[in-house]
């Protein structure tokens, strides 16, 4: 036991990193690794959105737009060979941060419903903009022929390279966020979620911290968008739309609002569920698009919110506590 009274706080990290490194060795299938790449990228998105919704209480729905802007900027810069691809990713994320700063500064004054409406408006404006700016983005047909990612001569050729990149980003952002929410800034943000008036009267500059968090999550989401577009070698407006938002919300609530590891778990469960649906229902239904998938996801959201409002992480926690209690009982009276 260490000072904080927790048993080996680093153990989950070692397990996660070990699992990520060992997976391609155990299952060297391109399909599985490709899906796990998606889990990593969507994990980043879900954690970013989850921090905003669950910890800061900001119901921002524009996350798919930041993802899309990051992807498009990185993609366009690479297609037109303006910058090397890896600089494009960073430029994309910086551009996203810039937009989200200029939008967030006025928008974050709004509360609850109104913030959701305004960011939902941003989401739809983003989708229209991706379609309409067809000289730059390629319009409805999408941005084609994005070159593969290369960093200083090393070319990311196959899915395994992208897998490690996405999980490096995912674990990095998970580590960063989990440190953040336990820091001074994180405590300020969480307290502003519980009671804005109380934290303001304690001298916490609530709007400033909210804006910082908003820009930070957008930046991370933009990074994920850049990586995603190089993996797909393609970007289309329909990817960054309402359906993605439904999927992200589902990841957050199935993981359990308020737990960072839960969001990652939600991403894992939902991506694989989506694959299952695609494999088994693709044969039965004539039209298999993201919108049909969204039916299942929508139903699942409703069921989870009604029947297990604390999500999978609440469930795991309960199980863990139950196990601990029985263990203590057994130890105390072994008869």
């Amino acid at each position: 036991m260490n000072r904080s009274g927790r048993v080996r706080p680093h153990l989950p990290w070692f397990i996660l990193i070990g699992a990520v490194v060992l997976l391609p060795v155990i299952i060297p299938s391109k399909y599985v690794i490709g899906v796990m790449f998606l889990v990593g990228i969507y994990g980043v998105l879900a954690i970013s959105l989850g921090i905003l919704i669950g910890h800061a209480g900001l119901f921002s729905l524009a996350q798919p737009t930041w993802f899309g802007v990051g992807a498009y900027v990185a993609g366009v810069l690479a297609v037109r060979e303006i910058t090397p691809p890896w600089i494009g990713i960073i430029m994309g994320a910086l551009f996203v941060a810039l937009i989200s700063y200029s939008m967030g500064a006025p928008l974050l004054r709004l509360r609850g419903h109104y913030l959701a409406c305004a960011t939902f408006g941003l989401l739809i404006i983003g989708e229209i903009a991706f379609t309409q700016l067809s000289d730059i983005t390629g319009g409805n047909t999408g941005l084609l022929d994005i070159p593969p990612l290369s960093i200083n001569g090393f070319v990311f050729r196959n899915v395994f390279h992208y897998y490690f990149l996405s999980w490096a980003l995912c674990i990095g952002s998970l580590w960063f966020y989990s440190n953040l929410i336990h820091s001074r800034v994180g405590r300020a943000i969480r307290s502003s979620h519980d009671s804005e008036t109380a934290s303001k009267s304690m001298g916490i500059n609530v709007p400033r911290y909210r804006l910082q968090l908003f820009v930070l999550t957008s930046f991370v989401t933009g990074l994920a968008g850049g990586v995603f577009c190089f993996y797909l070698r393609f970007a289309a407006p329909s990817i960054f739309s309402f359906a993605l938002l439904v999927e992200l919300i589902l990841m957050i609530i199935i993981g359990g609002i308020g737990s960072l590891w839960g969001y990652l778990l939600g991403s894992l469960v939902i991506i694989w569920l989506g694959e299952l649906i695609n494999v088994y229902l693709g044969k039965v239904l004539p039209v298999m698009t993201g919108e049909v998938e969204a039916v299942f996801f929508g139903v699942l959201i409703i069921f989870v919110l009604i029947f297990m409002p604390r999500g999978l992480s609440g469930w795991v926690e309960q199980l863990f506590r139950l196990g601990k209690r029985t263990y203590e009982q057994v130890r105390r009276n072994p008869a």
Partner: protein
Amino acid sequence: MTLLSLIVQYAISGITAGSIYAIVGICWTVVYLIAQVLNFTTGEFVMLGGMLAWVFLGAGFGLVSAGILATACTVGIAMILERFVVRPIRYPTEMIYMMMTIASASVIKGISLIGFGSETRTIEPFIAAKPIRIFGASLTPQVICVVGVLILVMSGLSLFIHRTVFGKALRASAMNLTGARLVGIDINKFRLFCFGLAGGLGALAGIAITPITFTGYSIGLMTGMKGLVAAIVAGWSMTGTVLAGLALGLLEGFGAGFISTGWKDAFALFIMIVFLILKTIPLSRRLVRKKP
């Protein structure tokens, strides 16, 4: 076409769209005031109205009976939504409600894609007459029907709210939920009723607009959002919503005509965002600004 006839033509299409936005805005308002829920399925009700009317017309019903059936089905769906999706939530917050209705909207949208296909559908105009020419612009009789539906809905609703006991109770619970509950008004019944009302009005709007703009499984989101814009700009008042809806329609008609059709849908949302931002800045702040 001369400039005048262009302007008249854009105004006609603007008022047509604006009437629909006004009705949809009322749907949002009714649910928001009584149930405190932002109901993102409102737009899907409009889509369902048009689609179901098309289905029933195809099955051989007449226009009136198909319209009534489609409206009744949509009211049923809206009530089911309230009873089995919105009401059973254990820890209700604004956020959870919004997630629920966003999820339901995507479910309705997807099911209509599977059930009705991805093609756009249309139904015959209510009155088979030649377009009327005004200043070189053509005014189809269906436009008059749409405006007629708006007037009917508005007058019916205002009679109902101001002249009946039920309407009085409704107004009371919109003003003060706790107070209404204290004097013995059954809020749950009213919430159910309001969802049904929103569904019915939305379906009516959908049926009226289908001969002009056609309907498809995906129209719900945009239509709904524009109604929301009208309702927010009007500050959740009935008359204001109608005016805001009409203004929004006109603005969109002229914007689409003179600026760009592709960006047409973005105008309304842009206005909403600007309006919301302006709302957060108190008027007096500039006058009494002191040292920070």
